[in-house]
């Protein structure tokens, strides 16, 4: 079993690429996840970033939607809450490019699988 499946976090980036996941169930979409997904896809391309950007279901923290998970090979995985278009771009510039995490947005809930 591969490492990230063991961590229970879904499809890994086999080729070492970063992965961004956007919660795209009804609650996320209602909170604006569609716009965030679009902005991330478009702007990552515009910046020439080699990323996999994909949809996932709802983790349950509906009050904090839209939720965006960022998984980079060189950093622990984190989940950003209440992401909008502007924050999405900051995630690309600060987290993905500069490897600096954003303040006041990460949620991390105790959870066993």
């Amino acid at each position, binding site marked *: 079993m591969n490492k990230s*499946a063991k961590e*229970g*976090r*879904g*499809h890994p980036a086999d080729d070492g690429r970063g992965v961004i*996941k956007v*919660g795209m*169930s*009804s*609650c996320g*979409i209602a909170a604006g996840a569609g716009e965030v997904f679009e902005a991330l896809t478009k702007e990552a391309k515009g910046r020439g970033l080699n990323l996999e950007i*994909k*949809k*996932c*279901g*709802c*983790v*349950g*923290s*509906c*009050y*904090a939607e839209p*939720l965006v*998970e960022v998984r980079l090979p*060189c*950093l*622990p995985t*984190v989940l950003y*809450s*209440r992401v909008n278009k502007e924050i999405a771009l900051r995630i690309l510039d600060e987290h993905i490019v500069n*490897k*600096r*995490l*954003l*303040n*006041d*947005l*990460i*949620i*991390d*809930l*105790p*959870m*066993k*699988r």
Partner: protein
Amino acid sequence: MSTTPTIILIKDTRLAGVDTTRDVQNVFEKCLKEAGIESHVQAVRAADMGVYERGVVVKLLPQNVFYGNVKDEDVSLIVNKTLKKGELVEHLALRNLPSQVRVVLRNCGVINPESMEEYIQEKGYEGLRKCLLHLTPAQVIDEMKKSGLRGRGGAGFPTWMKWNLARSSVAEQKYVICNGDEGDPGAYMDRSVLEGDPHSVIEGMIIAGYAIGASKGFFYIRAEYPLAVERIHLAIKQAYEGGFLGQNILGTKFSFDLDVRLGAGAFVCGEETALMASIEGKRGTPRPRPPFPTQAGLWEKPTIINNVETLANVPVIFQRGGDWFSAIGTEKSKGTKVFAITGKVKNSGLVEIPMGITMREIVYGIGGGAADGKKVLAVQTGGPSGGVIPESHFDTPVSYEHLQELGSIMGSGGMIVMDEDDCMIDIVKFYLGFCVEESCGKCAPCRIGGYQMLKLLEKISEGNGTDQDVASIKRIAKAMQKASLCALGQTAPNPVLSTLRYFEDEYKQHIGDKKCRAGKCGKLLQYRIMPDKCKKCRLCQLKCPSNAVVGDKEKGYEVVQAKCVKCGVCYEVCKFEAVERI
């Protein structure tokens, strides 16, 4: 020290007082610099760490070390001990926190629900493979029995027993139905599972089909869930392509087909016999049982009908074993339960908890307590069929038995948190009004009883109630419980009865004192202008729709109670807070 860079998440979790998160972050940054590891470790302010009232909480990733009540002087200790030497700072470590356990929601938010490959990577369809290739249908049911799984659709009927009954019914054709009608106000667990992990429900259905000897299954999903319907359709198509549905599944003799039917939004169509009538193209009304669906169900054939969440548990039971599953939970309530927690709670959303943790852990530990620092009064569980659980009983474990003892039910999993601004009679009127609206009208106890009970409650909330009305409510409630055709009518009195049990004082206040503590029952309110605060601006008089404000600039103004329609406009427009609401 590990080579993956470390993240230090920081959050001041006190609900009151000045937020010191930023200060602690500064101390960490300084300390990291002094230790010369600032390029390898980032100190970040978090938004929510799922822990409350534990002072400043710090979590190290990827080490997964959790510290609470961290003071400035502890920072260097954490940096020098944990970060540099990999040792735990014992006295700060947080242990035994109320934690969610993800069984049903194991893949929700993790995999792409539109990709079967990702489901398979998370061991999807392994359970089915095991059943089809290594177990007989009887052994499948044995494993289900071992797991102790009970239905999550409301009644908590043992799933293995239902399957076994259907298996023993002899017939050429049998059916499996997934109940995705989910009509309880405030509940949306099933929608999340259908949207976030559709294959797990499909896999559960195929295993059920194999166990009882059915070759055909139906999803019944309410049409208000378009995204769920879309994802289920896509997942079914993928499962056919992957050889998990259709003829000779995984090369065995077992064949199974799946179809989708949409519900048109009637709550009663979630009831199993009404649901089957609806699939048959008839009017969706319940019929008396027996015969039970396992004997004569859809088109008179043996049928099992299971809830979405029930079915989503099934694949895991076969992946990890019935014993693994039954190790979670209490003696009679096994596994986890997903709740949709809403209302006056800080973190509304879905929580999945092991059966047996307390209501307090759910509301305060996971939900973060009341939304605006108010006092939590009670939690309503089980939707319109359930009841309220007062704060004084929050230490009761959440399980089928315990909730029932308290006069509520597990139900499908809606959980509505109420605070001091909520009026019990107002809440009960809402739920009963829902049942009256959704009653199919077929049987008299539900159709007439519900309506009459609602009228009595309205009378009480308008200040015209008598003690006799409470007695009548109790009498009607008993008749509905005993004589209604289906559980809609049988359980509709539950919210009234449970509030009468725990909040009788509130009924007394409404009836005797003509008062509503929460200010929710408009007709019981009185608006009064306080002369000492009134600046005689006359705005209230101008805005009052019923000319109930009389007076002039000289004498001042007052509200004539007989004319007042209690709309509250005067209260809202006054710029000097000179209108009081009592």
